[in-house]
């Protein structure tokens, strides 16, 4: 059951990501991204992390992406124009990307023993999915990163306010 869900929604996520790149209109790209987020939520759910799945839907699909769509609607962004791309991209880009891919797969394959392996369509133990367990870890072991992240977001909000403020 978990394996079937993993395959179906994994494929949907990959298809959504590709569609995101190939669509010309920003609103279609944004909607493909929503599809990716939702299928990731299903994958979390099939792993047994219900809270993470619900948070993923509420935060990413329900709040952040709605704002994206809202801004695209408000600015009335037009279709993107396709160019053939610069010559540098063809000369340096494709070999570079291939080299990085080869390097990464080489490192992962050689360090396979140290990294360990996971089953496709597995199921997490209850400790990681339980809300009270998550909050205990978040407020004891990971308290500093948690608080620092909130300060970071606050700084971002202040920056947005400064940028949007009218000159007096």
């Amino acid at each position, binding site marked *: 059951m978990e394996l079937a869900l993993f395959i179906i929604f994994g494929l949907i996520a990959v298809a959504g990501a590709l569609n995101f790149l190939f669509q010309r209109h920003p*609103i279609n790209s944004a909607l493909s991204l929503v599809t990716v987020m*939702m299928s990731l939520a299903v994958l979390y759910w099939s792993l047994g992390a219900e809270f993470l799945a619900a948070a993923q839907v509420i935060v990413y699909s329900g*709040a952040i992406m709605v704002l994206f*769509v809202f801004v695209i*609607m408000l600015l009335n962004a037009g279709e993107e124009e396709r160019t053939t791309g610069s010559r540098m991209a063809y000369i340096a880009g494709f070999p570079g990307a291939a080299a990085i891919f080869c390097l990464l797969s080489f490192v992962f394959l050689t360090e396979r023993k140290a990294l360990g392996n996971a089953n496709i369509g597995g199921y997490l133990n209850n400790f990681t999915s339980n*809300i009270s367990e998550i909050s205990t870890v978040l407020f004891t072991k990971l308290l500093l990163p948690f608080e620092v992240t909130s300060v970071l977001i606050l700084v971002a909000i202040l920056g947005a306010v400064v940028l949007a403020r009218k000159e007096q």
Partner: protein
Amino acid sequence: MTHLLDSLSEFQIFLLITIVKVVVVLVITLTAVAYTVLLERKLIGRMQNRWGPSRVGPFGLLQPLADGIKLFLKEDLTPLATEKPLFLIAPIIALTCALISVATVPFGAMHRVVVNGKANADIFQIADINVGLLVILGITSIGVYGIALSGWASNNKFALLGSLRATAQVISYELALGLSLVGVVLRAGSLRLRDIVDVQSTHGLLSWNILGGFAREPDGHGVVGWTVVGGFQLLAFFIYLMAAYAETNRSPFDLPEAESELVAGYHTEYSSMKFAMFFMAEYANMITVSCVATLLFFGGASSPLGHLLPDNFGGPILAAIFPILWFVAKIFCFLFLYIWVRSTLPRFRYDQLMDFGWKFLLPVAMANIVATSLVLALRG
């Protein structure tokens, strides 16, 4: 028949029961949606000193049927300059999201059915999820896409303005709505809707969150009294109620479809069944919001009399039906309130709407969380 059931595996029986539950709940919800429309027309009629629909069937009771037939038979127009795929998918998103959230609502007391000693399923709730409340909030937040896309895909300035208003309003009020529920979750210590209802069903009416949550003290010495935590939830309830009216785009926050300025708002260009889907989504959302209010503040399907009547009063079948009757009665009260408010209050201005949400409801909801968690921390 029993032979057939024997040959099925546990998973197949579970699947079968779930499908039956989904179909039954869907039919009941859609009927309720149709009759909520009639209720609204009737009540508003009476409040404006006229009769409301009274020609089709006795007391106009067949009016929803006539409306449905009319909407089905109307010509389905699609304007030329629309963004076709999004124009088609927007009403589907709106209606599906409105209907899915009913799946987590427990309608009655827990009744497990065991088939052949194999699978057992709760017949009065489709899915018992341990983060049920978050699932409802998540699905509601996805429903915004239906409204946003319909306005954009229509290629019509009124529709676009309506959907921009609706999206901005829903995003703003979602925060206050979610935060107002945190106090209740803190008190129950769980996001599972059954647990939240169980906490409120110990002493009938007095244990409901709205009335202060009369319960045994948490230290467990058998002392019975009002928990201070419950007292704050009256405040939370009013925040929830106002945020919920804005979330469902209902009066006095119905700016997205303000007919005097925007024709009909985001569904201006829609006709026939596509329009009907938006219409049904709006009323299904009203019902969902009423369900959540009932579950979180009014003790869900628990009786207001508590255990004054014996639990098996009137035999097993009546004992199973009574909780559902209480639940339906509570939801009816909320729907009545919705309609009453609509015919009483004038519409807000847009800046008033935003000020009210961000500068009043949100801070009060946050203060409620701080106060509730302080009291819980000091006592427990």
